[in-house]
């Protein structure tokens, strides 16, 4: 499994990633249909850079993130992690004891800090757990590391926070605990699933800035999952847009926001309210609403809602993600 690492600075490369959930099946009955939650997704994340995965609810962004952290097993495809410590591994095929080794390199931060922390555990117990699971250090070293990390995430002085329980912390503080837990074993890569969407504005920016500082300091990359393009703009160098299980567009952040090529991206960007009453927006109206991708037809997933779709779009398979120059990739026949 271990091959020579790529030399082009790629940290994660996802190829043909798929996750199909069966629907309507039972204990003795085969499922008749499947939800194509993630369907043939390809992207790469460079070392030290972050990719924003953006889309509406149900587009498959969280499922993608969970597969990268191997909380879901992929139905198909590859997730190559190219890491100095463990070499090149296909995460999609890792099993058992190997999975534990690799969890040292990939961590996850969840959306809701009220749900993702065990209410019966102190901050210390929560943050130290990855070290215990991985058998790193003795009790003295562990305590030092936890204290050091709590300082870094702004829970200072650390000894006043160590033995508190989650209910004694505010939402922002809880999310800082979750960040500390993700970072304690020095991962190369973190899947962050809407880590700031539950936080209030004045708290949110602090957590976003902390995540950026720590990324620079530890050289860690994020897959930053969010529905909020404005947040992605501040957190990520590149943005990938998902629609019904497919990546429809991917580009450098400012390029994507300034020159969106896919009609869905254009509609999405034009619908974002602007915090300035002087700005008047022109909206690109798209038809209908988002559906569930249950056994979808082979054609473009956006066909039913696209204002530019024609017979060619109807009669052909979902368009491939193609580079239109300077790494701006789009999956649309009309571009």
């Amino acid at each position: 499994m271990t091959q020579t690492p790529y030399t082009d600075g790629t940290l994660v490369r996802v190829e043909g990633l798929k996750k199909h959930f069966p629907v309507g099946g039972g204990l003795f009955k085969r499922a008749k249909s499947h939800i194509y939650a993630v369907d043939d997704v390809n992207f790469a994340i460079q070392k030290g850079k972050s990719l924003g995965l953006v889309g509406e609810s149900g587009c498959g962004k969280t499922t993608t993130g969970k597969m990268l952290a191997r909380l879901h097993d992929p139905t198909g495809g590859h997730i190559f992690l190219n890491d100095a410590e463990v070499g090149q591994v296909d995460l999609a095929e890792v099993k058992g004891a190997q999975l534990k080794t690799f969890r040292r390199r990939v961590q996850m931060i969840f959306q809701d800090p009220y749900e993702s922390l065990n209410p019966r555990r102190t901050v210390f117990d929560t943050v130290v757990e990855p070290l215990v699971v991985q058998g790193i250090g003795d009790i003295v070293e562990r305590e030092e590391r936890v204290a050091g990390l709590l300082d870094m995430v702004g829970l200072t002085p650390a000894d006043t926070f160590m033995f508190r329980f989650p209910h004694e912390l505010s939402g922002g503080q809880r999310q800082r605990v979750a960040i500390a837990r993700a970072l304690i074993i020095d991962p190369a890569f973190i899947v962050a699933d809407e880590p700031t969407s539950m936080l209030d504005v004045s708290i949110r920016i602090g957590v976003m800035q902390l995540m950026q500082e720590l990324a620079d300091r530890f050289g860690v990359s994020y897959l930053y999952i969010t529905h909020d393009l404005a947040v992605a703009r501040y957190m990520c160098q590149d943005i990938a847009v998902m629609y019904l299980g497919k990546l429809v567009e991917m580009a450098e952040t400012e390029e994507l926001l300034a020159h969106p090529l896919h009609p869905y991206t254009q509609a999405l960007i034009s619908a974002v309210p602007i915090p300035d009453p002087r700005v008047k927006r022109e909206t690109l109206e798209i038809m209908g609403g988002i559906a569930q991708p249950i056994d979808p037809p082979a054609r473009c997933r956006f066909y039913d809602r696209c204002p530019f779709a024609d017979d060619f779009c109807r009669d052909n398979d979902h368009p491939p993600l193609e580079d239109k120059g300077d790494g701006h990739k789009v999956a649309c026949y009309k571009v």
Partner: protein
Amino acid sequence: MSLILSVHDLTMHYTTRKGEVSAVDNVSFDLAKGQSLGLVGESGCGKTSIAFALMRLLPENGVIKEGYIMLNGKDIVAMDYADLLKVRWRKIAMVFQAAMNALNPVYTVGQQITEALELHLSNISPAQARERIAILFELVGLDPVLMDRYPHEFSGGMRQRAVIAMALSCSPDIIIADEPTTALDVIVQDRILKRIRELQRELNMAMIYISHDIAVIAEVSDRIGVMYAGRLAEMAESADIFERPLHPYTYALMGAFPSIKGKRRDLKTLPGEPPDLLDPPPGCRFHPRCPYATEVCREKQPDFMPVNGAARSDLTHGHYVACWHPMQGVTL
């Protein structure tokens, strides 16, 4: 502009086992006919409590300590239940935050709106009710055939539209919208915001739109009130709030909001967290987080006053701020 709602020095507490929570403190604002006021602030700043006080839907432990809410010359705070029924829904209606919870799952959407119509408009026949619901559904952009369906058959956006239709059912003068689009995806949110704004203008209703999202507030409000820790920090015409914020909190809030348009500004953090309202700080409630706080801020609560020394009168226009050291000449 004629005044239709006047809230004066509203002060409201929640009684809890730990003590009194000072949720709304000395809040005053006025609303003119057809005007839309956005109330913006973070969770726990008292914006939803104000909405519930206006509808007199406060939970049992919510007590209005002081102040009055004058609606067409009558004080809602002092009203008895019979009078309240005449006002609620017919004069002032509310679109609730969680559309899923605002609808009863065992009745069709049409039945629920009919119930509201029958309760508040005494002599309406079932046929008239159906006719009216059909009109309402078209207003909010729903197909009238959907009135015989159950809430679970609706998507999130459709449910929110149904709840808006219900709020409009008795042609209120004032509509209160409490974060109606917060749980929705951006494309659906955009459509609903536009429809709300159009309806508010077409029907010449006054609106109080409550949100934590200053970008959403900017889209729907003529006037904006910024709340912090139970008090109004600043209130002005939308453009003035954005172009000339005077309260350091308003300024901080603007600086903390990422936008996808314009140059990528550096976002500014605001140190600390909002205060615990069981034991709010003395003086200005923002002083522990304020970079400009001085002795007077720590001791005395600043009055909510018009700027440039104008006399305090009608709050439907003008720029008001509660700050000892309002920021001058700051442009964003």
